[in-house]
């Protein structure tokens, strides 16, 4: 339980914007342990999304190493990263990113589709469990357009959990939600973190949500300025 799931060591990331080079991460080092529920906070441009992208293998570091569950991801091929993302990482996006032509069940089924090792019966069971976990049993055949923002984010959470990942990455998952719904979503993530022992890492601007989080990493200009382990986490 205490071995690091994620380890970032002296990671640098730069982006080119026209003639300008933006230094998004400047030697960031970080460890995440299994089962942790962690928030990354910071102003816009502080490097939150870049950190999540590197951990989730959807972007590559320019320098430094990123180790995921004991594997140095920088050396992996694109296909291997795809497999790692599919099997070990769940993603929750700010704008939900559901596929509009698919219903709730089918959206949650998406990551399972490309994994031939999961039998059809197992697949169905996983999907239905995930749907029950997020409280959407009455909306199985609804398309995203018919759902509220909070319900859509619940679908996204169910989709992220369908593969039983080691880590769920959520980039500003409450930014498009009203505060009541945002609390409910964070509470749901906390509940699933406790129930499934899945590691959660999410970025947020919302200071009010931090009262519910066990660990808060403060970023500024691409470096960690404070790493807080809170003792007021909601049960």
């Amino acid at each position, binding site marked *: 339980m205490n071995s690091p799931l994620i380890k970032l060591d002296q990671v640098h990331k730069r982006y080119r914007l026209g003639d300008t080079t933006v230094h998004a991460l400047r030697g960031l080092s970080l460890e995440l342990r299994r089962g942790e529920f962690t928030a990354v906070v910071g102003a816009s441009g502080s490097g939150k999304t870049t950190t999540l992208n590197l951990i989730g293998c*959807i972007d590559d570091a320019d320098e430094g190493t990123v180790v995921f569950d004991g594997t140095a991801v920088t050396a992996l091929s*694109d296909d291997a990263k*795809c497999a790692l*993302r*599919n099997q070990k990482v769940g993603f929750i996006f700010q704008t939900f990113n559901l596929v*509009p032509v698919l219903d709730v069940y089918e959206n949650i089924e998406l990551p399972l589709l490309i994994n031939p090792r999961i039998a059809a019966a197992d697949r169905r069971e996983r999907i239905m469990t995930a749907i029950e976990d997020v409280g959407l049993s009455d909306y199985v055949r609804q398309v995203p357009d018919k759902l509220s923002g909070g319900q859509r984010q619940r679908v996204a959470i169910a989709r992220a959990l369908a593969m039983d990942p080691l880590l769920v990455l959520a980039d500003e998952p409450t930014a498009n939600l009203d505060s009541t719904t945002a609390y409910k979503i964070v509470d749901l993530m906390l509940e699933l973190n406790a129930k499934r022992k899945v590691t959660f890492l999410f970025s947020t601007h919302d200071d009010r949500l931090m009262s519910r989080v066990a660990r808060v990493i403060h970023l500024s200009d691409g470096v960690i300025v404070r790493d807080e382990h809170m003792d007021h986490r909601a049960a």
Partner: protein
Amino acid sequence: MTSTWTIALRNLARNRRRTLTSGLALAVGVAGISLLGGYVARVELFLRTSAIYLQNTGHIVVYKAGGLEHASSRPRKFNLSASELAAVRSTLSALPEVELAVDYLSGVGLLGNGCKSVPFLGVGVDPKLHARVLQHPEVVRVTPDLARPVQGKILAEYASIEGAVALSSGLARRLSKSRVHDQLPPGRTAGALPDCKAASADQFAADANVQLVALTYDGSLSAQDGEIVSTIKTPLSAADETTLVTSLSRLQQLFDTDTATYVAVFLKPSANIHAARDSVEARLRGAGLQVSVYAFDDERINPYYAGNMAMLRSIFTFFSVLVACVVALSVVNAMTLNVIERTRELGTFRALGFTRRDLLGLFVRESVLLAGAASIAGVLVARLCASLINGAELRFQPPGVTDPYQIVIATPPALSAMTCAALLCLCALSTWSAVRRSVRTGIHRLLSHAAA
């Protein structure tokens, strides 16, 4: 259970207007190619049957070496002798793909009606074998009108009439011979020569007698009486005013020879013509015969067939390339728009673990489904149009052809299948070309594009 095919199908339904527009473009392309291809296929069948069975060349023609070029001017040297003909027939009879081998003698002379003489191009052939050729199932199926005499019956029906000849309609008309043997009173004999200056067309038509005059291979003058038993159509108008068909023995008597100009070889339907040509040539040369063997589609044998088919195939190729370009551009345009609209979705799929190949496959499936539906629609439209055109019995007269030709459009399943397969491949390739760059874009860029 959802599959990537289901997702592809739903994505097609997502933008119905675009899908419909692209699908219509593809369907019209398929219909156009099917109709033009069907027309070319039908013309090819007509010209092929006409060339093989009605222009007396068979599938394969055996000449003495150099005979094709020189037999008309130096027949004594370049015709096939009786012994060579026997050896050719003997060799051909051992080949399983050969259905029939027929000796033909051709030569020129003058044909007269007592007052007027006109040149003729004579063809001598065994009437019974000639009848088998004219009544071949392929001829009956494809060109029954051309094989049927305009007047009278086929030559083989008049075995008892010495000097029976069949004249092309134009040649009979030039000699004012408007009636054939069967249309004249029985027991009638050739009358006295009319007063040529005062003779009317009715006087020439009062009998079916003609006189054939030619130089023998020795250079002596030779003459024969002939009785017109039928008038025939020739496939090509160039031959309509000169063609005379009679028995091989009769023409050999006229030219005082026992030779033939060539042997036409008719193959069984399953035979590969060019392979058979090679095989026949090898066998004949192996038997010590100095011969040249040609396939019917050799432009030296059938320049009309070869020239027309080359032109039609060029038109078909040009049209197909044009349609392919329109189809490719249409698909590339539709898929490019799809990709732009679904950039965030691409990023999401990649984040969920879809590989670049998976994403390409998803888009290719969409275009394959679209192409499949459009193919079916296109083929159905083509069949409907073909039925309407065939039913309207439209006719036109191509240059160089004796009679107007009915426009018939065949819709062979093989052509439809090939067109559909080509469309599927083209659509898949166009989609791959339109999408491959986008799926190589970094995932974070795809996702941030959506947020922008």
